[in-house]
């Protein structure tokens, strides 16, 4: 008798567990608790037992009945919360809206701006149509410097107007109108008369940085670029300076980031050098200070530039600069959520 009770209990538990709908549960209820249900039948057989066994069995059967009721009610409750209405097929796709997104060039500029404004840089801007004065003269570019060549720079009809070849003229515009200290970044479009290929386009984007104060050194420049590299790429990135020459900085450097793809061990992307060339930087030339009316004895400053397309190409593994300007939706839609 007791073993029979145990069997029923096990069967009941299993049946409840496997029930998928309220109907399943009702079938179980009838099977065990209905008029001819198994538990009901057991109660009827109670009278046939010897009187001294009746209280024990009676108690056990009632406990089982109680448990069956609880299990059934609990299951019904659960089924109510999970089952949807049969009228609605909720697996139909939702009524979504069009997805949009920002252009990868601007995603990168936004990120650069975010990092530098976080370090206290202010955003400056200047015109894309510049004059030779701001683009070259004030930046100490010699009159016959090859960059001024008609081969390299787009000139407009009106004398001395050109399309800026870098964002550095913004330095001059800011310093000409603002006394030091200044700490700015200037994102913007630039133009060079390059033959178009996978790594050159006639327009591109740069972000220029400038900080002038009483006490600024190359170590500070390395500091902000290190913070920038870490924020942009990863905490392990290192910054390396290589000496170089630019007319508007002295000392001038080219700066590299340690390769994020191989952690500096050397790979295809860094051409096995462990370093990725980023751009140029340096300490602002004294003549540039004189051109904007800053006293070179009193002020020191650093300036740096960076090419946005180049960074975007590295970050996203894009191998052709022209893709940025084609704006194919199959391209643009890959940068959602970046």
């Amino acid at each position, binding site marked *: 008798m007791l073993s029979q009770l145990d069997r029923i209990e096990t069967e009941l538990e299993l049946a409840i567990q496997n029930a998928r709908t309220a109907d399943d549960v009702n079938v179980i209820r009838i099977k065990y608790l209905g008029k001819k249900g198994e538990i009901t039948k057991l109660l009827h057989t109670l009278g046939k037992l010897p009187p001294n066994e009746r209280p024990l069995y009676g108690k056990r059967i009632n406990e089982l009945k109680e448990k069956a009721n609880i299990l059934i009610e609990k299951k019904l409750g659960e089924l109510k919360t999970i089952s949807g209405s049969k009228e609605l097929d909720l697996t139909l796709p939702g009524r979504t809206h069009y997805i*949009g997104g920002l252009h990868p060039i601007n995603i990168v500029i936004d990120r650069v701006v975010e990092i530098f404004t976080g370090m206290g840089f202010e955003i400056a801007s200047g015109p894309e149509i510049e004059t030779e004065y701001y683009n070259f003269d004030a930046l100490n570019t010699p009159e016959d410097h090859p960059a001024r060549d008609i081969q390299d720079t787009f000139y407009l009809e009106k004398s001395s107007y050109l399309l800026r070849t870098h964002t550095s003229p913004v330095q001059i515009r800011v310093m000409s109108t603002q006394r030091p200290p200044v700490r700015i970044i200037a994102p913007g479009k630039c133009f060079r008369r390059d033959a178009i290929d996978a790594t050159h386009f006639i327009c591109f984007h740069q972000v220029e940085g400038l900080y002038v104060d009483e006490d600024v050194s190359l170590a500070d420049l390395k500091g902000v670029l290190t913070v920038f590299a870490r924020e942009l790429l990863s905490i392990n990135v290192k910054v390396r300076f290589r000496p170089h020459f630019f007319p508007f900085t002295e000392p001038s450097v080219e700066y590299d980031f340690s390769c994020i793809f191989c952690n500096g061990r050397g790979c295809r992307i860094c051409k096995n050098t462990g370093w990725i060339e980023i751009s140029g930087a340096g300490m602002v030339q004294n003549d540039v200070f004189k051109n904007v009316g800053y006293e070179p004895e009193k002020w*020191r400053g650093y300036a740096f530039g960076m090419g946005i397309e180049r960074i975007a190409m590295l970050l996203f593994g894009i191998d052709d600069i022209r893709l940025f300007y084609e704006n194919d939706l199959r391209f643009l839609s890959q940068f959602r959520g970046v």
Partner: protein
Amino acid sequence: MRISYNWLKDFIQVDLKPEKIADYLTMSGTEVEKIERSSMFFAKGIAVIVVDKLDDGGVKIFDGKSEIIINTDLPLEKGKLYAFSKDGFIMDEKELGLSSFSRALEIDKIFEPGTHLLALPDFDDVIFEVEITPNRPDCLSHIGIARELSALLGLPFRKPEFEIEEVEEKIEDNFSVEIEDTDGCPRYACRYIRGVKIGDSPLKMRLRLFFAGIRPINNAVDVTNYVMLELGHPLHAFDKYKLNSNKIVIRSSTAGEKIKALDEKEYILPDGVVLITNGDMPVAIGGVIGGENSGISERTREIILESAYFNPRFIRRASRKLQVVTGSSVRFERGADPNMVPFACDRAAYLIALLTGGQVLKGIIDVKAEEFKPRFIRLKKETIQKVLGIKLDMERANRFLVGLGLVRKSGSNKAILYEVPTFRHDLKDEVDLVEEVGRLNGYGRIRPNMRLSGLPPNRSTTDYFFKRKIAQHLASMGFFEVVTNPFGSETDFSPFERVENLVRIINPISLDFAFLRPTLVPSILRVFSQNHRHKKLNCRLFEIASVYRHRGLEYEEPHYLIIGSSGLRMPFSWGWGKALVDIFDIKGVVENLFNFLGIDEVEFIQNDVKPSYFVPDESIVVKHGETRGYCGKITEEIMERFELKTPVYIAELPFVIFRYIPKRIFKEFERIPTSRRDVSFVVDKSTPASNILRAIKGVSEYIVDVVLFDLFEGKQIPQGKRNLTLAIEYQCPRRTLTDDEINSIHQKVIELLRTRFGALVRGIDL
């Protein structure tokens, strides 16, 4: 510039691995772009050594790897070295690039059989391809690079040493120099060499020139090139006989003068070019290229050897105007060393005499307009620390600078005064010396300082973030941002602006990119076109960028926002209809954007002048303050021109339209609920809906909102009429309006509709 490792070793005793040298140079500012082994220069020719001659006429040779037997009629000698092409032909020196004469490779030595070609002295070399920045013309030479390494590695540097042998006869009794153009040519020196025998230079010299990328010509010309690569000072050799005069006169050219140069081209000179003449005829374009009429040939017996200093400005101008770039012009235009003039002259005269068997006349003619004095610069320890941000021992700094050829005049451990040699005219100020010290000490020693100074942050960054806020909002509304290039052709832009108003590039890379856009419309339509071509018809795009215009004597480049939409109104899916976008979608986007920005006073004007690229009946003027933008449908003609496959709707808004965003100040909002009354009426189609809505709002201050929530026209409605249904929300501050009050205002609305707009109101007239 190509630098030979063997050659460097003439001036500095160094035995590091080439990769190590390259690394040192690159990290100190002389970028090594490539390291090449000399073996690769002979890749096309396999050098072999004859091991033995066999009885049957065959020859046993060794090609560096193994012995091979070949049959040949050529008179090959045992133990000698020959070059063979890959297909088995003997290559002469001309074919190998080692000589201008066709002759067998000749080495005056008998070698042990089995000797590898590259094991021979001078054949085995490493070539560094270095990029020299324009401020360092002194490094366009082997001594320049050797000096860099000497300063960097602390190794002794020695200049070439030689002793010139002169005959008794003096140069000044036979020749003279006169400088008329002292501006263009401040110094001119020459030597006279007689009895020369022109022929090949020795193999060692030819190999060095060959590795440096210069074709060996003959023993006189090779010397001038050799000394240029060695000392960085260009030289020129004249055939004294062909010079046909006993003097050199240096003068400025007059426009139209002609000279046939050594490259066999005839140059027509502008004025102001430095001309070397024999007093009558031009014989060379000073510092650029020699004249054909006075060049060295096999018959030359006497040589006038020129060593001069030319003004960089003049050389640069001549090189640009004549479109000719030579090893000489490159060095002079970047700035040669005026005080190198006599030394380079002596060095070359010594070598020419040595190689040609000539005799050097006594003395040197050296005419100069001025003394070229060294500069003096004081370097303070404090400045090093301030600029580089590192502490550096003054003696260490001094070692670097002395290594570079600067002369320490006086000083202490706080500051040192230096005399700067004239070959370093790039060193002008103290900070230039700091850079020298910094780069030789290594920028790797500068520790990044990541502390920021206490400058107040961000004074005016709002413009940028405002633009990005709009971009983000449009992206959230399902638009992709594009970045287009602003160039285009006349045909691209002529439908949008009169050609004379376009901003023109005077030196475009092609006619397709000859103008700057007058509006963003063609730029964005190109993107639609590109995507339509790839069957992406549902495009929602925007861009914020500049357009370019003339403004008086200047230019202006106002920023615009352009938004465009084509294809299905809602995504292609079971949940939405299949309607295409129309004017109300793009107008809705514009309204939404202004709404998002909190600008409420925007007006939409239907009957007004719009640009011709919009369909007049399906476009509208957007006006905020005095600023106007447009939105609407692009015309069929433009669609065809841009090969658009489905109609495109555009909103074109000057960015200033978003100025004057009202300041937001919190107002206590009305907590009493509004009461709604609807009204439905039939009215003339020609009556603008906006007029009706505005008029109703004007009826009472208690009308807080009017929403058009139904519109239909069709069979049940008379021709030329339409049915509008409005929900009007009534509300009064601080108290609930009674039904009577609302009804009385609503009645006024109905009267207004009937009398002012001739409407037939449902429930009354219908």
